[in-house]
C-alpha cells in the first residue's frame, strides 16, 4: 500500500464573514497567490479583499450570444430566402424580410448565451470535480452550513509548513488543519 502523501495546504476556520474578510486582506497583502476562501454564500466585497479582478465570463457569454444571433439569422435567411423562397402573406423573400426574423434571432441569442453562461462558468471554475483533497477534511464540510474557511495551498511559492501555520494563527484562524492528498 502506498503511504506517501502530498501536502495540499492548510485550512483555517473563521467564525464570521467579517473575520474571514479581514483575514483575506492580510493574506492578500502578504503576497500569496494560490489560496482561497470557502464560504456558504458569496461574501460581498471579498473579491477585492482577495485581490481578484472581475470575472471574464461576460466576454464568453457575449461571444456565445453573438453566435446565437448569427445562427438564427442564417437558419432563417438560408431556408426562407436562399434555398426555398417561401412566399407567405405577401411578405418579401429578400433581406427586407429581416424584421420577421427578429423574434427567433432574439430567442436563440438568449438560448446560446444561457448555455455559454452555464458551461462557461463550469469551465472557468474547473467544475465538475467530484474528488478534491479538501473533501478529505471532516470539518471542511461545514463550509456549506455556517463556517468560513481560508485555505492556503502548498503549491504557492510562499508556502512553508511552519511560517504559514504561524501566519494563519496570527490572523485569527481556528482549528487549523494540514490537508494531505494521496498520491
Amino acid at each position, binding site marked *: 500500500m502506498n503511504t506517501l502523501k502530498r501536502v495540499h495546504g492548510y485550512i483555517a476556520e473563521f467564525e*464570521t*464573514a*467579517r473575520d474571514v*474578510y479581514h483575514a*483575506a486582506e492580510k493574506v492578500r497583502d502578504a503576497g500569496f497567490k494560490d489560496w*482561497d476562501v*470557502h*464560504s*456558504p*454564500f*458569496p*461574501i*460581498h*466585497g*471579498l473579491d477585492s479583499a482577495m485581490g481578484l479582478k*472581475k*470575472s471574464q*465570463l*461576460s466576454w464568453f*457569454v457575449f461571444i456565445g450570444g453573438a453566435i446565437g444571433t448569427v445562427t438564427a439569422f442564417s*437558419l*432563417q435567411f438560408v*431556408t*426562407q430566402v436562399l434555398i*426555398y423562397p*417561401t412566399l*407567405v402573406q405577401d*411578405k418579401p423573400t429578400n433581406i427586407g*424580410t429581416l424584421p*420577421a*426574423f427578429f*423574434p*427567433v434571432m*432574439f*430567442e*436563440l441569442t*438568449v*438560448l446560446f*448565451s*444561457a448555455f455559454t*453562461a*452555464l458551461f*462557461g*462558468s*463550469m469551465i*472557468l471554475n474547473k*467544475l*465538475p470535480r*467530484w*474528488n*478534491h483533497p*479538501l*473533501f478529505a477534511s471532516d470539518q471542511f*464540510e*461545514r*463550509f*456549506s*452550513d*455556517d463556517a468560513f474557511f481560508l*485555505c492556503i495551498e502548498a503549491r504557492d511559492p510562499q508556502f512553508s509548513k511552519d511560517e504559514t501555520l504561524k501566519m494563519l494563527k496570527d490572523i485569527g484562524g481556528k482549528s487549523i488543519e494540514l490537508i494531505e492528498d494521496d498520491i
Partner: protein
Amino acid sequence: MADAQTSEPIRPVLAREPLVTNGRSMSWVTNKICGIVENRQPALWWYLFIPSVILMGVLGYCLAYLVVTGVGVWGNNHPVGWGWAITNFVFWIGIGHAGTLISAILFLTRQKWRTSVNRAAEAMTLFAVICAGIFPAIHVGRFWMVWFLAPVPNANGIWQNFKSPLLWDVFAVSTYFTVSVIFWYVGLIPDLATLRDRAKKGIRKLAYGFFALGWRGANRHWRHYEMAYLLLAALSTPLVLSVHSVVSFDFATSIVPGWHTTIFPPYFVAGAIFGGFAMVLTLMIPARKIYGLQDLITHKHIDNMAKIILLTGTIVGYAYIMELFISWYGGNKYEQAAFENRQFGYYKWAYWAMFFCNVISPQVFWFKYCRHNLWVVMAVCMCVNAGMWFERFVIIVTSIAQDFLPGAWDFYHPTRIEIWTFVGTFGLFLGLFLLFLRFFPVIAMSEIKGVLPESDPHYLPPETFTHDAEGEKLSHKGLKKTAKKTAKKTAKKTAKKATKKATKKATKKAAKKKKN
C-alpha cells in the same frame, strides 16, 4: 477590536423590516430547509400527492384517448378551432412568468426579499411550462406529426414558415423552458452541496453529490458563479417579457376582431405576472404554514407580493377598459360588435367573472389589513387564478365564436375529455411541485444566508459597540440582564407548554385505554 466603536445613530422610523425574523442563525436556516428534505413528509403531503398522482393518470388517459381516437373527442370545431387547449396553454404559460419575474427582474433590481421565494417560484415556472407545453403539442391534431414544429425540413424539402408567430412561439417557449431550467439549476448548485455534505452515505449522497458538481464554496468559484447568475438574470428579463409578447402575437397579428390590437403584448405580460404571483402565493402560503417557514417567508414577503398583484391587476383592468375604449373610438364595426358580444353576448358570464376576479377583487389589497390577513390573500389569489383563466377563455372563444359572418357563428362548449385534460394538468402541476418540496431545498439557503445581517463583512454585533452615536459610553450590563430575563421567561413558557402537552397526551391515552 479594542478601539472605541461608535454605534450608528438609531432611526427607528427608517429601520427596515428584517428579511429573516427572530434573528435566526445560518445553521438554523440550514437545519430548517434541509430538514424538510431529510425528514419524513407530513401526512398532508401524502393527502395531496396521492390525488395528484390519480389526476396525472386521468391526464394520461385523456391524452391517450385523444391520440387513439382523434381530435373529434374535443369540442373544437368551426369556427372555434382553438378552444380550451389554447386557453389552457396561455393560462399555464402565464403562470410561469411570476417565477422568472421573481428570480430575474427582482434580482436585477436588488429586491433582496426575493431570496425566500425565488426557488419555489422558479420550480413553479418549470412545472407550469411543462403543463403548458402539453396543449399545443396535442392540439396539432396528429400528435406523431409534432416534429413538424421543429426547424427541420419536411419530406418535400420545405422548411417551416419563420415569419409566423406560431413558429416564434415554439422558439420562445422552448427557449424559455431551457433557460429557466439552467437558471434554476445554477441557483441550486450551492444548496445541493449543502445537502450532499449533510448526507452521510448512500444514494442520497451520490445523487446530490453528482448534481452539486463538487461545489466547494470557493470564492474564486463564487466570482464566476455570481457573474453567471447575474448574466442569466439579465438574459431572462427580456426573455420573460418576450415570451408572453410572442404568445400575444399569435392573436394580435391575426385580423380577427377582438384579437387585432397593439395593446396585447404589454397587456399579456402584465396579466401573466399577475396570474403567476397569485399562483406563487397559492402554493407558498400553505407550504409556509405546513413546513413552519414563517421566519423566512414573512408577512413582509406576502405584503410585497400582494402589492405586485394589486399593481398588475390594475394594469390589466386598465387594458380591459382601454380595449373597450379603442373599439368604440376606432370606429370599426366588427371590432365594436366583438366587444359588445363579449360583454352582453353568449359568454357574458365569462366576461364579467373575469372582470370581477381580475380587476375588482385585487383592489382590497389597498388596505394593509387585507394584505396581512392570509385568508383574504388566499381568497383573492383563488379569484385571480380563476379570473386569469377566464381572461384567456374570453379572448379566445368569444372572438372566434362570432366573427365576420353571422352564418358561421356557433356556440362552443368543451367536452368531458377536454375538462378532464385540464383538471389533469393541475394534478401534474401539483404532483411535480410536491416532489420538488420532497427532494429539493424549497428556499435558496445560500442566498438567504447572504441577506442575514451578519453576512455583511462590515457587520458588528451590537455588543461590540462601546460608545453610542453621541460618544457616550455604553454599558451592556442592562442589555445582558434583560436578555437573560427573557431567556428565562421563554424557557419557563416552553416548559409549561411541554408539560401541558404531556398531560394532555396522558389523559388521551388513558381515555383510549378506558374505551378499549
